[in-house]
């Protein structure tokens, strides 16, 4: 019997949702487990780094790595896994574009540490103790991963072959991806394994969007009782759908919530936030600066809105500030 292909899963800066999504394959997971050998999956099975190190380079067919990269340990693991895997798949929004953890790129490392170790209401740290990368205690040297000053996407650290988008990717896309891998008919490197048009394409409310939509006001989901049938943009809710890859089958829309963009942009767009901004603003009704600003005031956190998942992959990547 020929050897089954080896598959691995790994996680970096992530919430665990991606791992959950693998489990969400439900019965299909058995199909996967039948077809492949899972050789490394820290969340579910007990493996050590050394186990991986002893594997032959390129011996894993594919690794699905989720989570953004913030620490030196994550960098190290990403590199190790890269070397061991023929195919590396950035799994989920965080590995793909930085995801929610990358919103931290709006702040400096020092600000974050200060908040976490001093200012947060639940913290008492009168001695101002901060974690240090290397701690020398007599003859003992203790090291901690270095907390970098920038959150990175996986492909900003190592070479990535494919991307499986979503927060998290849907079981359907995962299943398709695994089948593709097993079939050996690989798409061009760099492909995002989801449709290359925007979410509106598969949105159940598409019909209800008027062709002459212009914005006089914006609102937010908690501020209105939104019509569950009507295009959310047409109700003044910022929906990222037009600038976001399809493939999720409009999960959020079906939950009566606007798309927040987790599938990232289409292949033709380099900066998802810039594009949705361009599209939405172009269609604002107002013509004077004052009137335009009044409408824009209704989008209180534009970076958090337009770059919720994509800040690390955006053109600017990180807030420009002095500290390094």
């Amino acid at each position: 019997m020929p050897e089954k292909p080896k598959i691995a899963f790994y996680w970096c800066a992530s919430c665990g949702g991606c791992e959950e999504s693998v489990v969400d394959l439900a019965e299909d997971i058995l199909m996967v487990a039948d077809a492949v050998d899972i050789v490394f999956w820290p969340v579910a099975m007990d493996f050590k780094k050394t186990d991986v190190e002893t594997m032959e380079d390129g011996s894993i067919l594919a690794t699905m790595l989720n989570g953004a990269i913030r620490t030196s340990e994550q960098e190290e693991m990403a590199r190790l896994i890269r070397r061991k895997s023929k195919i590396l798949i950035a799994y989920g929004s965080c590995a793909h574009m930085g995801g929610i953890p990358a919103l931290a790129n709006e702040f400096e490392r020092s600000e974050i540490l200060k908040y976490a170790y001093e200012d947060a209401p639940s913290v008492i740290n009168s001695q101002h103790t901060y974690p240090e990368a290397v701690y020398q205690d007599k003859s003992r040297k203790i090291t901690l991963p270095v907390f970098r000053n920038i959150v990175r996407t996986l492909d900003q650290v190592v070479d990535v072959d494919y991307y499986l988008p979503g927060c998290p990717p849907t079981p359907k896309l995962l299943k398709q991806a695994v089948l593709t891998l097993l079939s050996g008919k690989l798409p061009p490197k760099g492909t995002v394994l989801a449709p290359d048009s925007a979410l509106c394409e598969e949105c159940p409310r598409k019909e209800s969007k008027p062709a002459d939509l212009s914005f006089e006001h914006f609102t937010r989901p908690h501020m209105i009782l939104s019509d569950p049938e009507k295009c959310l943009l047409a109700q003044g809710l910022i929906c990222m759908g037009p600038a976001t890859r399809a493939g999720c089958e409009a999960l959020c829309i079906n939950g009566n919530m606007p798309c927040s963009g987790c599938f990232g942009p289409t292949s033709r767009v380099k900066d998802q936030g810039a594009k949705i901004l361009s599209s939405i603003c172009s269609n604002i009704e107002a013509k004077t600066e004052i009137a335009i600003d009044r409408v824009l005031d209704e989008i209180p956190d534009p970076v958090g809105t337009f770059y919720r998942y994509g800040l690390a992959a955006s053109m600017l990547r990180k807030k420009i500030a002095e500290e390094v």
Partner: protein
Amino acid sequence: MSTFNGNGQSIPKIGFYICHCGHNIASMVDVDKVQKYTASLPGVTVSRDYKYMCSDPGQELIQKDIKEFGLNRIVVASCSPLLHEHTFRVATEKAGLNPYFFHMVNIRENVSWVTGDKEAATDKAIDLVRAAIQRVFFHKPLVKKEVPINPDVLILGGGIAGIHAALTIANAGKKVYLVEREPTIGGHMAMFDKTFPTLDCAACILTPKMSAVKNHPNITLWSYSEVEKIEGFVGNYRATIKRKPRYVIEELCVGCMDCIDACIYKEAKYPDEFNLGMSKRKPIYIPFPQATPQVVLFDPDTCIDFKSHRCKKTCIEACDRDAIDLKQTAKYEEINIGSVILATGFKTYDAKFAPQYGYGRFPNVFTSLELERMVNASGPTSGEVLTKEGKKPKSVGIVHCVGSRDEKSNKWCSKVCCMYSLKLAHLIKEHTGAEVYNFYIDMRTPGKGYEEFYDKLMNEGVHFIRGRVAEVTDWALAAEEENKLTIRVEDTLVGVVRRIPVDMVVLSVGLEPREDASDVRRMFNISCSNEGFFLERHPKLAPVSTFTDGIFIAGACQGPKDIPDSVAQAGAAAAEVLSLICAGTIELEPNTASITEEFCSGCKSCIPLCPYSAISFKEDTKKAYINEALCKGCGTCVAACPSGSIIQNLFEDEQIFGEIEGLLRFAGIDLAGSETKGKELEHA
């Protein structure tokens, strides 16, 4: 990401040419250095410099290289693309290469002419060239769009310029719509008695042209009309003309004026616009005897019947042709035309804005235009020059440059005032024998026969005092100033302040853009220069063209000018129009946008953005679609498509990103398409 191979495109072999433009570029940009630098860039096969790239030998150089080296991209660094892009595209095409593989770098207007330091200029030129080299990698062959030219022409404004242009084009056998806002054509010239420098009678030379317009089979004259709307593009404009109601059926009225005599008002009571309020007219009137068309009109604001419906309407009874129709409403005509000439003329400076000269305050201060009417035999005084008291003035002062050459009003020289002031001086002297004083800053009489006219005036005993008049006052300081207007001026030739008492003052008001010039400009999508006159495409080489193809300008709407110049421009504009018509078709920039249907999500964001409604939603595919014939290539939808599914030819995202990268850091493009751009293909 595209690869050059992947796109079915050839690997770039770029030919680069930098032009010295004589010394225009070479004196500020180190042409040799740029040329050598560029030669080292990836993809560049040939790099040369040449004295005049736009000359025949320059163009041949490119053509030869295309053939010899199989060049497939051409970059020329020279002047502005607005000037010579076309030249080089044609040259490229002649050598068998698609013209849109050409790109132009502006290192003259944007570099050598505006930079003071040679090193900085050279560096800037290098950056710009690098951007262009990086850009042309992404160029694609495009098909030229050709559209037919509708041979009908719209001319706006029936002054001498509009009249002349209309006749020229109509005589060539083409159809003209002449739209004039006032009830009659003729413009300013119709108000004059004589014209400088020949002193020939304005009416004698203008009236025949006016009636020729009226009677020409190829001219449709719509007076008392305005353009409401115009849309379309060169060769294919569609305009809506509003014909304001005269309350008289134009086709029936023969201009016998019986109705005017029959009007219930026995005396004319209302200020006559054509005579600038210096005489009166009735509610039914004709602007002046030779008005064209010879059709009376009602002034609804003063006609009793319009106000109370209680007039006996003796006018209607008097008209045996039943031409009067008090229920007439505005009529809208829709016309299709291929080109437009704007000849909307000027207005004169409002002398009230120069209060020191007392216009409006002293009854005997007149504007030059009022005097033109006064000296006119058919004017309010039947050609007599009279003070408000009805007396012949014994002395008259003519103040030049009112509202011209002045920081506080208009900075420009109005060009015709010196000459018409001389003309008026002559006519006043002729009509009254008065002493005439001309107060001038500089005497400007360039033109054929103009200086001679000035000489003639000096010999006629007209006084010339050099100095800008400080004020006109009725405050007498000496006995001879009693009951007179005193002109206070520093005579700069003698260096003394003089006070000259006169019976009448004439203000030589300058020429200004019309009040609605900027509305007209917007409607026709052209620009204005700083002062507000219509802007020509090029001050020397395209003086009657505008930046909008198919829209031309002629006469004083482009800037102050006299009749000979207005007529010359009108002829030039007519020639431009005729050359368009004779060509039959025109090439449009193929810079239109298109939607890749496969990618479009049907989000409809782009649809309301298009100013030409070129984008529609296709119900069958549920995707957006651009009608290329309607797209004018602004690129607004391209910038706004949130999924990047719209492409604009010649301004593709990749081309612009290429320029950006090229300007800032040459990332370099891998020719084989294997490295930065082509990874995806090699794999798998």
